Every structure is written in C-alpha cells, then in structure tokens.
C-alpha cells in the first residue's frame, strides 16, 4: 500500500508545494499504511533530491536524473510514472500545471481513473474535492487498485523539514529511461519576480478591472512590499492585458488560501471566488458597495481605490 509523490521542482529548487502533497500522502498513510516515497525526475536534480530527502515523513527519494526528463514533458514523465506505478497503490502530485499535465496521462496508461484536486482525505479510498468552481464539495470513493490523485496544496498543511535534525531519507537512482520522439522543449518565458510565490504566499494583494490599466498595478507594489505579499489579479485584469496570465487567481488560474487576501477593484465573480474564498481573512476595496465581493469579505472598504491605495501604503 505504498505511496509515491511526484516532487515538484524548477531551476534546481524543490517547490514548496511538494511538502503539502507529502502531507496529503501522510493523511492517506494513516488509513492505508505503507511508505511514502518521493520521485524526483528531471535533469541535474541532485540538489532537489537532497532537499526532498529532508522532508518529514519521506521513506526514500527515487531520482530519475536524465535529459529525457528535462522540463518534465508529459510523454516521458507519463511513461516513467507508469513504469514505477507497479510498486505503489497511490500516485500523488500537486494540482500544479505539471501535476495536471502528467497525472491523467499516467492514470489512463494504467487504465484507472484520476481524482483531481483533493482537499481532504476521509479514508484510504474516500476523498473530498471541489466541483462547479468550488460551489459544491464532492465526496468520492475509488475502488481502483491504483489511486492516482492530484492534491490542492491549500487543503493540507506542509510537512516540516528535518534540516535541523540532520535526518534525511535514502536517495536511490531510478534507471528507467524512456525514448521520446514526440515532444521537444523549445523555450520558456517565465515572469520575473522577487515577491513570494502566489500559491504559497501568506498575504496576497490582487487587482481587478477596477485598476483601470497595467500602469496602475504599480499602486499595489508598495503595499505588497510592505506586507511581504504576492500580487494576484482577476481574469478581467488579465484579459484586459493589465498583467500576465500567471498572476490570475480563480477557477482557471491559481487557487490561493493565504492568511490575508486583499481584493482591490475586483467585483467577485464566481470564477474569481473559486480561487480565493478559502482565504482566512478577506478584505475588499471597491467603489461599488453592491459588488458581490463584499458578501465574502470580512472587512470591506467602499471607496475610490486611487485614494485608498496610496493612503494604505503610507500608513502600513
């Protein structure tokens, strides 16, 4: 009944989301027993494997370090995971764009269903997941011999690191190499930011259509800097070209659940709420006092954001 977690990494760094997925695996392990293994697949990933081995609760780290897995393209990654699946009853990955890309491919190769974006573990075979943009929560039970799951990281508290105790799991090489003549990596254009990663930030400040234009998003910079916050956006702001799409919070963008979410000039459409309504405290700043965002906001401030934002920045 062992569990295999696909580690998420980029540029030689283990992503914070992996610790949340390990937590979900441990929640299942309490019912199912078995060991939690981690798979690190990529090219030049020794440092990632070292970091992964220090995560609390990990039995061993399996490392597939080969050019075939660079950029974690779906075709070789799917084949690799399908190859390793025989040793496991559970395959888990974060519900990131990597996890969403690879895991359904693996599930189909193994002729089993996938359960997407679990937020809670009821038992060894029963999980909760949001449907209809988070407007309903489904409890589903899987009788598949292999359970393929993606995990919504905001649903599980990250496991700790054994860094300080000097402990670490065993690291073993996996020598499965798959041919891939079908897909080739060409290029990547990543948004540069010194701010915390949106999905893992403790505070998120988001702007919507009410920001008026991309230039005005600078009004959020000072506030985000003072709070150590990430900056997000509504789909309206992304579609209007104010900011790049990787800043989008919502059903089709990122799901966040920070301690504090400040929504500025965002009306609060169903699609946006799906991405942020599990935040601990929600603040809405909007000139329209009828805006739906006020129905979920703990604190609402009705007024002109162009007056409120500079004042807020100055007083923080």
């Amino acid at each position, binding site marked *: 009944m062992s569990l295999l977690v696909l580690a998420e990494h980029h540029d030689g760094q283990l992503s914070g989301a992996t610790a949340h997925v390990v937590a979900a695996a441990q929640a299942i392990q309490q019912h199912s027993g078995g060991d939690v293994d981690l798979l690190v697949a990529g090219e030049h990933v020794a440092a990632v494997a070292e970091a992964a081995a220090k995560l609390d609760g990990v039995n061993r780290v399996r490392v597939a370090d080969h050019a075939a897995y660079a950029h974690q393209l779906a075709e070789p990654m799917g084949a690799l995971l399908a190859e390793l699946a025989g040793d496991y009853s559970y395959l888990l990955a974060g519900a990131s764009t990597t996890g969403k890309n690879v895991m359904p491919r693996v599930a189909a190769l193994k002729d089993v269903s996938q359960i997407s974006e679990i937020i809670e573990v009821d038992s060894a075979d029963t999980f909760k997941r949001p449907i*209809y943009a988070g407007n309903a929560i489904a409890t589903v*039970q899987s009788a598949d011999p292999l359970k393929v799951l993606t995990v919504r990281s905001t649903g599980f508290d990250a496991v700790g690191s054994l860094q300080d105790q000097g402990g670490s799991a065993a690291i073993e090489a996996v020598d499965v190499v798959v041919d891939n003549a079908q897909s080739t990596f060409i290029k990547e254009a990543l948004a540069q930011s010194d701010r915390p990663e949106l999905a893992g930030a403790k505070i998120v400040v988001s702007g919507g259509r009410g920001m008026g234009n991309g230039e005005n998003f600078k009004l959020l910079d000072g506030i985000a800097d003072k709070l150590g916050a990430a900056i997000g956006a509504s789909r309206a702001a992304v579609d209007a070209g104010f900011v790049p799409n990787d800043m989008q919070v919502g059903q089709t963008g990122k799901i966040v659940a920070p301690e504090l979410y400040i929504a500025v000039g965002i009306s609060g459409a169903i699609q946006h709420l799906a991405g942020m309504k599990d935040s601990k405290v929600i603040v809405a700043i909007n000139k329209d006092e009828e805006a739906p965002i006020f129905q979920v906001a703990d604190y609402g401030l009705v007024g002109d954001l162009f007056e409120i934002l500079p004042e807020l920045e100055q007083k923080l």
Partner: protein
Amino acid sequence: MKVLVAVKRVVDYNVKIRVKPDHSDVDLTNVKMAMNPFCEIAVEEAVRLKEKGVATEIVAVTIGPKAAQEQLRTALALGADRAIHIQTDEKAESLAVAKLLAKVVEQEQPGLTILGKQAIDTDNNQTGQMLAALTGLPQGTFASEVVIENDKMHVTREIDGGLQTIELTLPAIVTTDLRLNEPRYAKLPDIMKAKKKPMDVTTPAELGVEMASKVTLLKVESPAERKGGIKVGSVDELIDKLKNEAKVL
C-alpha cells in the same frame, strides 16, 4: 488535415448552482445549459485553422444525452462540418470519455484533436491527457497559442511560472486555455445552415466501450459558508481591524 473537436454540455457558467437536499448531486433540473467555455475556444481554434487553410474538415463530437445535440448544432453553426453524437444517459467519467474519444480518433484519423482544458462542472482537467495516453499521441495542454507547420506543431502552454513552448509531432492532442482565442458568436443564417449539416448518432455499446467507473460519488455538499463581514469607514479603521481583531498584520 482533419480536425476533431470534443465539446461538452454543461451548466451555464453564470448559474449559481444548488446542491440537492438529499446530497446526492447538484440539482440541474430547469437550469440553463450551454457549451463548456473551454470547448467553445476549442471550436473557435479549429475554425480559425480552417480559415487559414490548415484544416480541411472539422468534426465535432460530444458524449451525453439527446439534449447534448444542441451543443453539437452550436459547434456546426460556428463552422464545424459535421458532428458525431455518442448518445448515453449515463454519467461519463473522464476515463470513459477518453476511451470513447479514442475510438473516434481511431475511426476518423484526425491530424489534430482539440479539447477544452477542463469542464467547468466536474473541474477535472483530465480528458485530453487521457485521450493522448490512450491514442499514444503527444499532448499540448493549456494551450495559449498553436502554430502548425508541415507535420509539426508548436504549442505555447500556460504554466505556473509563465509560458512554455513545446514542439509536437502530428497527429497530436491539444487542450485549450482561456487565452487561446476569443470565440465568435454564431450568426442566424449559420444557425439555420447548421440544421442541415450531418450528424451521426452512435452509442458507447456500438463503439464497444464500457462506461462503468470504479469511482463512486458518495455525497455532494455545499461548501462552508463564509460569515458576512463588516464594512469599515476608513483606511485607519481597516488597518486597526487587521492588526488587532483579525491579527493578520
């Protein structure tokens, strides 16, 4: 090149859904249904490929009850040439849908199959990837740009940190992200013409696909309600509340 487009009939994205009192599922009686928004984008992309002379024929396919033919007619009105309706009243899980679509891919041999990245009802984001696995084809998921040259395709994908471009050999499977294009509206004459376009009706049994899933829906509940908050009168009051009441600053 033939392009296959899969579309799904779902609850309209503006509808505020209700959970049935017995918690068996979401109540969809008398609720407005529509084509899944991501599928509309898939249809639009296929039509644009035809307008560019890349696609020669567009085949739209759906799986669902008789009423789902409405969505196929919409696809035909938007520019698809013919439609295939795999009729079933059973709920089709992603894996079963992918198996049915794999049969259609086998029969039709499209150069490209386009699907939405996810349906806004189940929010699974699985079918395209599963179809790629079952057909042994490469996948370009969450596409925001598709460029086809000869027997290769460049797909720009929306990934967590930004954008990634990959090259795929054709035939291939693509799933659409929201920013791939802006779907057009069907014009009345096109809606009339769509009524005369061919639609084949088949069933999962005829295609030899078992619909049964090992995943059971036990319960559907409403999410925890957020308590209504308060309105504050000033920035000072807001900062004070966040510091002393909510203690998040």
